[in-house]
């Protein structure tokens, strides 16, 4: 159980960032976002997405507009607000730091895969001598 916890913690950490990065590229509605993420090999449940979007929207990071659809009820299309853009930038910086740190560390073992094998807490670990 523990490993799954850690793994899901890792994911949760970067979800918002990923979502914001997708929306940043252009207006998107939830289903699209899910598709994008799946395409990038990051699986997400729609049920996770909606609350996240709503939270971001309530925090004024996102805004939306309704778009009528002929094949169903109207859809919400989300786009980034300026505040959201700023938020995104900060997250990006953090992400870069993290990625560098992790990469540096894991490269010492000779493998440089994208998988993060150290904790996702963001604290740097003492380097083994």
């Amino acid at each position, binding site marked *: 159980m523990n490993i799954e916890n850690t793994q*899901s913690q890792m994911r949760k950490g970067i979800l918002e960032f990923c979502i914001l990065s997708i929306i940043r590229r252009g207006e998107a509605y939830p*289903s699209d976002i899910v598709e994008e993420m799946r395409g990038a090999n990051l699986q997400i449940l729609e049920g996770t997405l909606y609350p996240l979007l709503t939270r971001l929207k309530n925090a004024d990071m996102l805004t939306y507009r309704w778009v009528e659809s002929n*094949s*169903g009820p109207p859809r919400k299309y989300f786009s980034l607000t300026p505040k959201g853009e700023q938020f995104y930038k900060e997250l990006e910086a953090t992400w870069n730091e993290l990625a560098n740190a992790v990469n540096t560390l894991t490269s010492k073992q000779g493998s440089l895969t994208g998988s993060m094998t150290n904790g996702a807490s963001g604290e740097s670990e003492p380097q083994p001598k």
Partner: protein
Amino acid sequence: MKKVININFQGRVIPIEETAYDILKEYIESLRRYFANEEGREEIINDIESRIGELFAERLKKGSTCITDADVNNVIAGMGRPEELEAEGAETTGTTGQQQTTSGSQSASGGGGTYTPPGRGRLYRNADDKIIGGVASGLANYLGIDPVIMRIVFVLLFGALFWVYILLWIIVPSQSVQSNVTKRLYRSADDKVIGGVCGGLAAYFNISSWVPRLIFALPLVIGLLSGPLNWWWHDWDIFWGPKIITSSLGSTLFFVYIILWIAVPVAHTSAEKLEMRGERVDVNSIRNTVKEDLESFKSKAQNWGNEVRQTAQQFGERARDWGRSASAQTKTYADDAGAAVRRGGSGLGHAIGVLFKAFFLFIGSMIALALFAAFIGILFGGYAFFPLKDFLLEGTWQNTLAWLTLFLFFGIPLLGLITWLVRRIIGVQSRNHYLGFVFGGLWMIGLFSLIFLVGTLGKEFKTRSAVNEELNIGPINTNRLLVDVNNTGTEYYGSDWFGLDWDDDWPFYGISHDTLMLTSVRVEVLKSDDNNYHVSTVKYSRGSNPQQARNTAQKIQFNPVLKDSALLLPRAFAISRDDKFRNQQVRVRIEVPVGKRIMLDRSISRYDWFDIRYNRRGFDIDVDDRWEYWHSLRTGVEYIMTPDGPKKVTDLDPQELGRGNYVPLKDRESTDTRRGDTATRYRYRPGRTQESDDSVISNTSYNSEAAGEPESSGSGASDYAEVSSPMTTLLRLFQ
């Protein structure tokens, strides 16, 4: 063929199977619950619903006529169930969508329908969660309670419910029932004072946690308090008095607590905590629980207490399984022995090996049962005998040893047995073996304390002293003295909880809170040196040294009273709590002059002669040694004192008697005089009339020398009392 209904879903009419609609509805409800605290909940739900609506529309467009169960399930899987949402955040794995749908459908197929509300359903035996036949667990599922409780009930009421169990086992069909029991008994990790037992119980039964605490603690506290209180209010001998609650109930609940502490697991994870409270383990409640936990974890003291308890528990488990592994080892030794013999080749050897094993097991279980029975006996009898404790034990050291012995020597095997039993029932795997070690160690301590206790107690009884006292009763102006027991004195009534009556079987007679009445009295008749009756008493007692024994003996109060021609002896003598019970005894010596008669009333046979032999170093006797002429007499028979000792009046020739001669009757059935040995036995000749009385006051401990009287060769009856009646001790053993 299924019923299809039309629903208005997000502004569109959608035909959907009724069962599918139920599933959908349940899912939406669960989402609602999940997002209960979420800001913007309605919006989220709405978004999700409209997404679902979209998906349905696509489905319909692709050619289905209506939405089916499978469609709904797929949609839900895609959306994500609340548990999945919270627990994972995303998917179970990071790879393929296949995994996701697989996991989704797996949790869907558990019970045949996805969101089946936990209904009662039919009674089945649970095929998955079963120890013997799954009866208890199936029943528990049906009733909606924790199988553990059910099992414990079955075990406790084993006698009554045994047949019920068998019946159910036969009748009720077995099925893999999805356990809808969401309430299990755990120990609470947060709400705990000692071990969280009461907290867990409170959560399980949905009551405040102080209620079980009170139930557990109150009898114990009352018991502890009432110990000294009893001495003040000792006339609280009401039949249903508080003693029941305090002593037996208190100690029982104490043990119940200990057992629960050991056997019931602690709710660690959030899921377990929720199960403890019986809330549905879904995301919402987990979230709430986690919040609470975070707050409670702030208290460091609790964490520390946790660790301490865990180490202790591990230790205990280790000790427990050491005990088990020890017995397992003996089993394996027996196994090896059996195997070795088997290798020897003969089937007989194999049988012997098996017998060997069985023998060990049998012995082990017998010992356990014996200890168990002894403990139960002590627990119950302890209530009756508890007042006696102070008469026996002296000082804090002995008292401590006694308690240690009781609880450790007797209680630990019992505890171990019950723990093992409960563990088996619950199905808890013990990871460490510390408990066995702890139990084994405690039991050894109990053993040692038992040995010490016996040693120290024995020391108290080491020496025996006597105090001789001539009583000035009289003058006794009669020719025939009747010795009787004074029953008109204070009667000691006491019937206690078990309805015990003080009767002849008890060596003591009557007990109140500070005195114990003993009936260790013996009456002896000797020939008097002069023409008068004399009455004296010899009081015995034991003690750790002669002086102490003598002091204790001195304190015995035994005062015969002369009334007309009857000597009335007290029914019993009293020893006080301070004096302790040290095997006090009283010998009443009555010297009868020759020619006078004496008769012991039958009630004298009700005296007992409680005697503790302590043969390792002998015992000290410090009395006069004028024991030549004492004899034990039968009660209810009149004797006359002859120069040769008391003789039954019926034995002697009446005419000669009138003339002052003591001539035995020709056809007497008396002692076999021809033998001339120092010890004879009385033999009953069948058809004898009167002397069939209950008991003869027999003496068992004294051997005194024949003093001087030559043993005649026994040539037959002669006129004067040259009959060689036995001069010395008569050891008569009567059946």
